[in-house]
């Protein structure tokens, strides 16, 4: 018998060693096509990191651009505010002012909430006075409003000017009731009867006869541009000096606007907030099967693992501290706890040798593996198998995020997109299941998984929609995305990258000094 067995084995073994057969040409063609596909996948994968970095960069750049544009506006506003603070001169100083050729100061007022500004025109005098004076004028008085950086002409609501014409000191009033784009103003008229008109809208005839009656209040209210250049000329040779001054300080012109000016001109003070959150997340694992040893074994393939694991909704909660260091920019950090539940379909588990040389039934999950040693039956031999029932896997982790945020306030609402990284610590991993053979069954609890890393790095981004209930309390609703940048496994059959999309609700307390 043994000889026959030996003969059979030899015959086949020899044939196996010697046999060669040319495959059909289509094999290489198919292989080539598949390699193309794999290359495309690799290429995609290779640039995924760059893509993420690019998105992050874009996000930060958008923030910077927004911040910069805001700060330019703010700066312009602040200049006006500073100028206003320096106003000390009186009417008498104006009238006593030695005429400087072609100097003109115009006061511009913005919409309520924007600071007032003063500008002296024509590069001759940069005065801190709210008054300006134009002298030595010969023909017409033209007030040009310089366009801002965005090439937008300012809107004129009304203009206030006091004209000193020859022996007459009086106020000229022109009320332009509609907001109009002001390109220039021309002051013309006969002696003692000059009037203002907007040459951009000559047909509208906004000129008013010069008279004592209507020269008290005129205000340039500039809603878009915070700087202005005014040039004044006159055709009237009898006008030896032409000056425009605001009729009244801002407060008396428009008390509400002045109050707003006070508010908005306050310097920003950095502050802290503390928020508590609860979140429901839909989490999934992205599996990568490229461990070099994993070139076979249906149980170990990522598709198989993916198919048998189903993620339930996970829960996370945490405390976040937010430091708002400018009006728009801030960062937040804190601690987040999350609990992920995964249901695992029944599977056959096989006896494998453990690292210490003993043999146990290996229970494989995407997060790691554990060994099962039931009390029933004989000690397992390599290759023996057991059936496991539905299993419940739980992963608990703590994360410490660090995110940069950009804050945009709109009345009682704030909108705060943020992005950053989080360092995550897996603190607990358990699998609960039941194993059975033909005669026995036993409930099993696997505490702790092999092949699982304790720490992994993740990317985190969220958009916080905040309702500011009062100055201290706010309510938040924020969709959140978390994505592991490093794998949570090491030495497992697959590399696993968890990610989740969730919606959080929270409450925020603002610490104000």
């Amino acid at each position, binding site marked *: 018998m043994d000889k026959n067995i030996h003969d059979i084995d030899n015959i*086949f073994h020899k044939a196996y060693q010697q046999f060669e057969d040319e495959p059909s040409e289509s094999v290489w063609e198919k292989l080539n096509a598949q390699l193309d596909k794999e290359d495309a996948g690799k290429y995609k994968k290779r640039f995924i990191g760059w893509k993420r970095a690019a998105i992050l960069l874009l996000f930060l750049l958008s923030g910077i651009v927004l911040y910069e544009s805001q700060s330019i506006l703010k700066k312009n506003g602040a200049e006006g505010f500073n100028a206003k603070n320096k106003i000390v001169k009186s009417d008498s100083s104006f009238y006593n002012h030695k005429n400087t050729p072609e100097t003109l100061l115009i006061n511009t007022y913005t919409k309520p909430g924007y600071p007032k500004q003063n500008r002296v025109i024509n590069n001759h005098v940069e005065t801190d006075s709210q008054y300006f004076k134009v002298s030595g004028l010969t023909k017409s008085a033209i007030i040009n409003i310089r366009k801002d950086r965005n090439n937008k002409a300012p809107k004129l609501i009304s203009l206030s000017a006091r004209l000193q014409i020859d022996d007459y000191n009086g106020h000229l009033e022109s009320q332009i009731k509609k907001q109009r784009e002001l390109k220039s103003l021309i002051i013309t008229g006969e002696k003692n009867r000059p009037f203002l008109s907007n040459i951009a809208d000559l047909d509208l005839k906004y000129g008013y006869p010069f008279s004592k009656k209507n020269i008290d209040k005129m205000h340039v209210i500039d809603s878009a541009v915070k700087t202005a250049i005014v040039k004044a000329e006159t055709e009237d040779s009898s006008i030896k000096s032409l000056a425009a001054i605001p009729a009244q300080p801002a407060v008396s012109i428009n008390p509400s606007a002045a109050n707003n000016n006070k508010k908005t001109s306050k310097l920003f003070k950095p502050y802290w907030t503390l928020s508590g959150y609860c979140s429901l997340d839909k989490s999934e694992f992205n599996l990568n099967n490229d461990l070099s040893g994993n070139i076979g074994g249906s149980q170990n393939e990522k598709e198989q693992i993916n198919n048998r694991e189903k993620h339930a909704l996970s829960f996370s909660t945490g405390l976040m501290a937010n430091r708002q260091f400018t009006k728009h920019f801030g960062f937040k950090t804190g601690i987040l706890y999350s609990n992920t539940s995964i249901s695992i379909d029944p599977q056959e588990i096989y006896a494998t040798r453990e690292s210490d040389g003993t043999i146990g039934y290996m229970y494989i999950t995407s997060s790691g593996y554990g060994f099962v040693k039931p009390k029933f039956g004989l000690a397992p*031999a390599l290759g023996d198998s057991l059936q496991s029932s539905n299993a419940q896997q739980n992963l608990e982790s703590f994360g410490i995020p660090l995110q940069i945020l950009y804050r945009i306030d709109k009345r009682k609402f704030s909108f705060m997109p943020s992005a950053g990284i989080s360092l995550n610590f897996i603190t607990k991993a358990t699998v609960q299941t039941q194993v059975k053979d033909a005669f026995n069954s036993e409930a099993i609890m696997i505490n702790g998984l092999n092949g699982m890393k304790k720490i992994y790095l993740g990317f985190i981004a969220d958009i916080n929609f905040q309702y500011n209930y009062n100055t201290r309390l706010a309510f938040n609703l924020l969709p959140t995305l978390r994505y592991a940048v490093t794998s949570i496994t090491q030495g497992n059959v697959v590399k696993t990258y968890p990610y989740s999309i969730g919606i959080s609700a929270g409450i925020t307390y603002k610490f104000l000094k």
Partner: protein
Amino acid sequence: MIESNHNLPDSLPFILKGCIAGDRACQSKLYHLHAAKMMGVCMWYARNREEAEEILQDGFIRVFKYIHTYNAGGSFEGWIRKIMVNAALFKYRNKSAYLKIVTEFNADEHDIQAEATFVSRFDEKELIKLVQTLPPSYRMVFNLYVFEGLKHREIAALLHVSEGTSKSNLADARKILQAALTVSKKAVSS
């Protein structure tokens, strides 16, 4: 079929380097150098030629994927051969319907008859056909035991069956092959 790769040197280190870098000409070269031998391996593990070509294709995908892990100290052909066997195993496992579970092993049932004698010369293609006609689980156990020299414990672990099942399948496979060879021999002598 063979592209411009015939100009490439046959030096294994050169080809390996190219394959690691993903150079398609080197991959083609490597494939065409080993395709016939590996097709020969796959034919033993497959049910037919089409399946063997599928295994060959899967096997080479794995070869190119894991070529960076090849240790230059060992035989490259042996390494590729091992990957082909693994590809065949993977295919076999995925077709679980093929699994024929034999839970008990009875040595008497599987005793090979003493009177049978064999001639040592058989056409290789005929032998492959005989192996291909075996039930997949028998074929796999027989191949792993006889061709790859694995122990029953190792086969059991690879196929996720018990050691007894592995022994039983091997004995059954031998019995079937012996019967087939005897018939063939009689046919030849008559």
